[in-house]
């Protein structure tokens, strides 16, 4: 965090090296989210570049007292991707309804990019799906509970429980690391 803070200060002072280091740290996570939302590698790369260009240009608007840098970048990426998806959706819907329903098939992406990794895979299927919908597919809670066909309240508790479980997993792996470090 200390490291991030000084990097962000440099970023606001238009230091390209700071942007480069922050990109190295966060571009993978952000790229993954964009990819899973838009399912098109070319578009995802453009959006990733566009996102970090916005980060560069609007850096002074980031307020570290309101939240983490990653959250700020995540929101920028998500909004940009949703904008592109909405435009595409409008075009597809006005032109031909059948195309929209086939959208899932028309993906230009490696299937593995859509798979989830890490602690989230240890969750129960419905918890995992809830997280995937709001976090990686950019759906709102309202859209997601309709998609899963469960009441909004239930969906919200899925998210809460999923996050609680994730936190426990992370805490375990953290204590495991600490244990290993101690052992060494």
């Amino acid at each position, binding site marked *: 965090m200390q490291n991030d803070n000084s990097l962000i200060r440099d970023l606001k002072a238009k230091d390209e090296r700071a942007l480069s280091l922050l990109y190295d740290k966060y*571009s993978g996570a952000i790229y993954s989210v964009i990819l899973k939302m838009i399912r098109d590698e070319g578009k995802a790369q453009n959006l990733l570049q566009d996102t970090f260009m916005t980060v*560069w240009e609007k850096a002074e608007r980031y307020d570290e007292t309101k939240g983490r840098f990653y959250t700020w970048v995540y929101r920028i990426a998500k909004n940009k991707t949703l904008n592109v998806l909405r435009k595409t959706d409008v075009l597809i819907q006005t032109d031909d309804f059948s195309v929209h329903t086939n959208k899932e098939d028309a993906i230009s992406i490696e299937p593995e990019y859509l798979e989830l990794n*890490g602690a989230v895979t240890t969750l129960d299927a419905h918890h995992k799906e809830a997280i995937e919908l709001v976090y990686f597919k950019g759906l709102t809670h309202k859209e997601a509970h309709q998609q899963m066909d469960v009441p909004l309240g239930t969906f919200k508790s899925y998210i809460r429980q999923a996050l609680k479980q994730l936190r426990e997993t992370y805490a375990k792996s953290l204590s495991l690391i600490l244990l290993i470090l101690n052992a060494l």
Partner: protein
Amino acid sequence: MDKKTLLENGLLEQYVLGELNTEQCEQIEQLLASDVELKAHFDQLEADFENLGLENAIPPPALVKSKLLKDLKTTPNETPKVVTLNKNNNTKVYLGIAASVAALLMIGSFWMYSQLNDVKEQLQIVEMNNTELNSTIEVLNVKLKENNASFNAIINPDTEQYILKGNALSPEAKVVSYVNHKSKSVIINTERLPELDADHDYQMWADVEGEMINMGVISKDKTIMTMAYIDDAESLNITIEPLGGNDHPTVERLVTNVYLR
């Protein structure tokens, strides 16, 4: 909105995910700023979401980063002015070079043109000098021939020399005459004849049995000249006559004479 509804309604999660409108965001930010416990919960939530993201990271192609860093340098609010200025500078430099080259060429042309004119003038002068020299040579040749003729006449063994000395009218006058009776020629040297005014000439006469016969008017711009040879002349006489000579000698103005033997 209070802390309890915030937690129960999962609004904090939606806030992190950026699903809320500006008004809701502001309310949440106020609560977070005033409640340390809530802030700690929120920080945890953010950290979890970040971990989730980092665990699922997919490395993007290196090309994206290089394009991004390249684009930074051409960002509209940063460098374009510099870039265009640089371009302008480059064109200015090229224009400057071109202008200098053109200027040098022009100066060079002018210089060469003036040189050409100089050379033409010099050539004209040389041609003039050449013509002058040629005419001088012609004149000299004529004079040389005359002088040669005179010289040959003078050194001829048959030539007799008579000196005409000035009388009281012109005491300083002295004319040398070379008379050859065989080839019948008379040459005189008028070097020592005093100069006359513009209205008069010296004229030479031969005395044959008391009669003065014209031998010719003495030229003012020659010192050696040939006169007419008169047969049976007893003496040679020089008088001052009106310009161009006279039919009969003005005896009162006789300046010198010599008797031939």
